[in-house]
């Protein structure tokens, strides 16, 4: 099983070193090979389960309840300016 480790790392925004790519590439291949044992399980006509306990229509009333402490959220900002989160140049 050949996985395009580069592509997957890009999608996941993970900066891997060449060594890591080799190591993970091998490990991932083994794990995914193992995952393929699922192919032996017959699932035609079987509905997928996304929620273990089936529920529906969970909603809340449209009412405003202010959080009350936005400063505590801003306090974790790695970089901030004028009350906003600062990020570096977006386009290369």
């Amino acid at each position, binding site marked *: 099983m050949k996985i395009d480790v580069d592509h997957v790392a890009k999608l*996941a925004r993970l900066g891997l070193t060449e060594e*890591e790519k080799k190591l993970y590439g091998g490990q*991932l291949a083994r794990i995914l090979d193992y995952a393929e044992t699922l192919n032996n399980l017959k699932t035609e006509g079987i509905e997928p389960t996304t929620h273990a306990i089936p529920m529906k229509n969970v909603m809340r009333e449209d009412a405003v309840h202010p959080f009350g402490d936005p400063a505590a959220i801003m306090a974790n900002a790695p970089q901030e300016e004028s009350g906003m989160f600062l990020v570096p140049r977006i386009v290369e």
Partner: protein
Amino acid sequence: MKNDLCKKTAHELSSLLKKGEISSVEIVDSVFSRIEAAEDKVKAFVSLNRDRAIEAARAADKLIKSGDNTDPLCGIPVAIKDNMCTRGIATTCSSKILANYLPPYNAEVVDRLSAIGVPFPGKTNLDEFAMGSSTENSGFHSTRNPWDLKAVPGGSSGGSAAAVAADETIAALGSDTGGSIRQPAAFCGVVGLKPTYGRVSRYGLVAFASSLDQIGPITKDVTDAALIMNAIAGYDAKDSTSVNVPVPDYRSVLVNNAKKFRIGIISELVGKGIDEDVKNAVKEAARVLEKLGAIVEEVSLPTFEYACPTYYIIAPAEASSNLARYDGVKFGHRSKEAPDLLTMYYNTRREGFGAEVKRRIMIGTYVLSAGYYDAYYLKALKARTLIKNDFNKAFERFDALISPTAPSVAFKAGEKVSDPLAMYLSDIATIPINLAGVPAISLPCGFSNGLPVGLQMIGEAFAEEKLFQLAYTYEQNTEWHKRKPSL
């Protein structure tokens, strides 16, 4: 001896507190003396906060003295796994990427325990972002098994389980996605319960795999687990997957009676791949239950063979999405080498995440990516249905199912780190339970070479009462829960 208070259970301490014979401050003091003596060896905690705990203990003592009808857990210290948000207190998930993160809010379970007067001695160690079965994946340090300091405590709630086993806390909270409460409880010889999915609010639990995660108690005995469940279980409007079903008084169902309980011992989990000692301990437990009036039969759940591959597609897929937010923009670590956004993302996540987390993000991203979704993710969701059906069928015949909690006792540190697949396969007994969303409890049932063996009892969704009764009965008719490691 006031110093020995830390060795007692929550319910024992609760009666002493109510009688006025001891104070919560004395309990916290005893716990911290024990931490001082043992923590160098066990390393169960990521952070400790004695001052805060003493403050909470003082407040609890006031409450108890005032004669108000206080909860049995009032004044009893409970340690919190470091993937549950505690406002203003570092919540790291044992990851470098959140090393300095101070949540602006409390997890719902933390609020509920706080409200009844529970002091928190500290946050316990875990495999990074709860991904692992040995706590060796912690971004900070490994935790040791109090029964054998060369062995792992299990994972991912290894810190919580070790702390309880070592009396460094009276009780603890853990989280369980594929066995992360039950397996470390088994390895450390304590009790661990994963409730029915939706029984306990996930609000404030840092998500690993949203459709599988649940918070639950890790305690010295079954009664303590019932007390914690009484305090934390129940509907929370902030969690859309929280089920609005009334919470019974779990303590009231703790009767010593297993008569006519129909118990199925899962044949797939007492055969190949399970250690002899573990198999024998569980079979012996089955005999004990039979002597107590239960009817034990073997039952086969054939789709169990597919539980691990199913889990190791679904869990990483959800995780890859849940962990995307750790990007250096809003909180946590941001790489110093960040000339542009893209580089910032790459470097921040490279520097901040450990190997196992990176692996799982990669797997998850891959199985969700264009062209692979149907073959992997969708297929796994269908397999999940079949596994759930197996459980439903079994529960038509049985009140509870039993099995070993893990295929072996605690393995040596370093033994499995280089083989991720081997590590994954050791979750075979616990994973199917998370996929089906049913509750399960692990309690000690024997020893092998001085290391505890765990017995897993599995119940139907929202039938924790039956589990508690069965577990309590077994416990009261055996002595395993009274043994302590000689640290």
